[in-house]
């Protein structure tokens, strides 16, 4: 879970944990990259607008590494996402969350892994 707003990071992580997954937390793209290197997660759910490294840059960095091609990435934003200028994410979600939508998304993207 990558989110600079700590209360939202906690919320998102709690939702994921309640679905039976382990949630790792990072508060910007750079922290997330270090964590991905270390933990090799199956799914990254990232906010777009963050300090240090935003969600788009994080996505670009993940797509550049061959060994990370199996990692699913979901971008979340309160503003419209520009899908043209960046490599495609596996899914997009908007803020505020549609709770059922987020839960379903996580289920789908982690199914069979």
């Amino acid at each position, binding site marked *: 879970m990558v989110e600079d707003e700590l209360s939202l990071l906690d919320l998102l992580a709690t939702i994921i944990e309640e679905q039976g997954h382990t949630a790792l937390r990072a508060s910007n793209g750079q922290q997330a990259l270090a964590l991905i290197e270390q933990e090799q997660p199956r799914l990254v759910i990232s906010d777009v607008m963050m300090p240090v490294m935003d969600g788009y840059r994080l996505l670009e960095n993940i797509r550049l590494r061959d060994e990370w091609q199996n990692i699913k990435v979901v971008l979340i934003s309160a503003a419209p996402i520009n899908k043209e200028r960046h490599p495609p994410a596996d899914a997009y979600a908007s803020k*505020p969350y549609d*709770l059922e939508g987020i839960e379903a998304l996580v289920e789908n993207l982690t199914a069979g892994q």
Partner: protein
Amino acid sequence: MPLAKMKVIPTNIPGLDTLLGGGIPVGSLLIVVGSPGTGKTLLLQQLCFSWTQEQAIENTEASSDETAKKPKAIFFSTLSEPHDKLIQHVGQFEFFDETRLNEQVKLLSLTKAMEQGLGEVADEIVRTARHERATLVTLDSLGGLEDLTEGRGGLRRFLYQLSSQLSTLSITTIVTLERNIDTMNSENELTVADGVIHLTNYRQGVQRVRQAEIRKLRGVNMLDGLHTYQITNAGLTFYPRLESLSETSLNFKGAGKNDQRLSLGLPELEQMLGGGLPTTSSTVVAGSPGTGKTLFNLHYLVAGAEKGEQGLYVGFYESVTQLKDKAQRCGIKLEDMVESGLIDILTITPVELEPDQVMSQIRSKVEAGNIKRVVLDGVIELEMACRWQQRSYNFIAALVNYFKTKEITTCYTYEVAKRVSAELDLGETPFTTLAENLLLFRQVEYQNKLYRVIAILKMRDSAYDSSIREFSIEDDRGIKVLAPTESVRGVLTGIARKLDEDE
């Protein structure tokens, strides 16, 4: 390019949505602030029921899975009040619906979580709201958590955490706060809120006045200023201040000689008026008591009804029965028109009048039908009810403007104190400037006898007969304006002579 308009959910509390500019933006944090006894707790409980009611209807239409989509609201209490007592209290109000209690509206206590600190309270609220799939969370009251805070700004930080999590889940949050808003410092809890509803009550003479003000509400065009509200068995009802509803530009059709004229059922007077009253115009019918002003109004409404035009009579002195009897004596078919639904009568006791409440009643009738003619018999009662707030001029201006924008032709009767006099003093009232047409009904004395006379003192942008005419009130006919040859002259100076007396 601006983002899509924020989704707003109506509260369905009478009048409140008008104040809020349509409703509450989804995911907002609102604080209801006010002193004890202002109805903050009741407002939250009412909101829980009204919120779940409307959305349930909305979603039932859109979805076949009714149960899953039914909206839920949670009322969290920080008071150590027994659950049964809480239900007992809220159960006395008409908005309470036992069938929705627990399934859609949950009343929960936070006292257990409070034992473990403020962080746990926030977690408990978010966790419960999430698991219940609630769309509205209310918390009564924030003050009850004050003992759990550490250092300055503790409640503000708590509110920030709570609202950021709940708003991300599209959950709207409303909390109460017992405070005097005017003495709060700038670093207060209200800075975190998206909206602030301020409730006040105070004594005015022997009356208790309740007023609400939307201090801020992000994302919508709320109504500024103070608005009256009342607490009854139905819960809270808000009455938007009429002036705040007024459009800023004068968009109504102007009166003029080319306009259509409305009949009065009084051919002689219609002739004097150049054909009748111009449509959408406002007319003040001024006069001393007993001169026939009310009767004139009944003629006016019935003449319209005979042409299929709906009319509304609003009066402060005579009951419906009295009005019907008066009309019947004069052969005016008021009762028939009331029965056929063409004329509606609204009688209001002129005791402790609240002008916006009266207007709310009038507006609901006007907006429910296709009313073309309105009579406000005794409009001075409304004007007087505005005086203590020094809003007479603005209120009357908004009143006149309201009817004109609805394309309604309105007659206002205005009582003149002097029973037999040539003077007409409206100088201290807003009516002289706002009335387009001004008719004067009065009595003059001549050889120990009183005569009724009528004069048109003003008609905006229209030619009229400025002569003074005597009129009589006759059984089976009502008002009869006499021809000049039948009349007396010199009446405005109080020296009345028969026309042929000295000629």
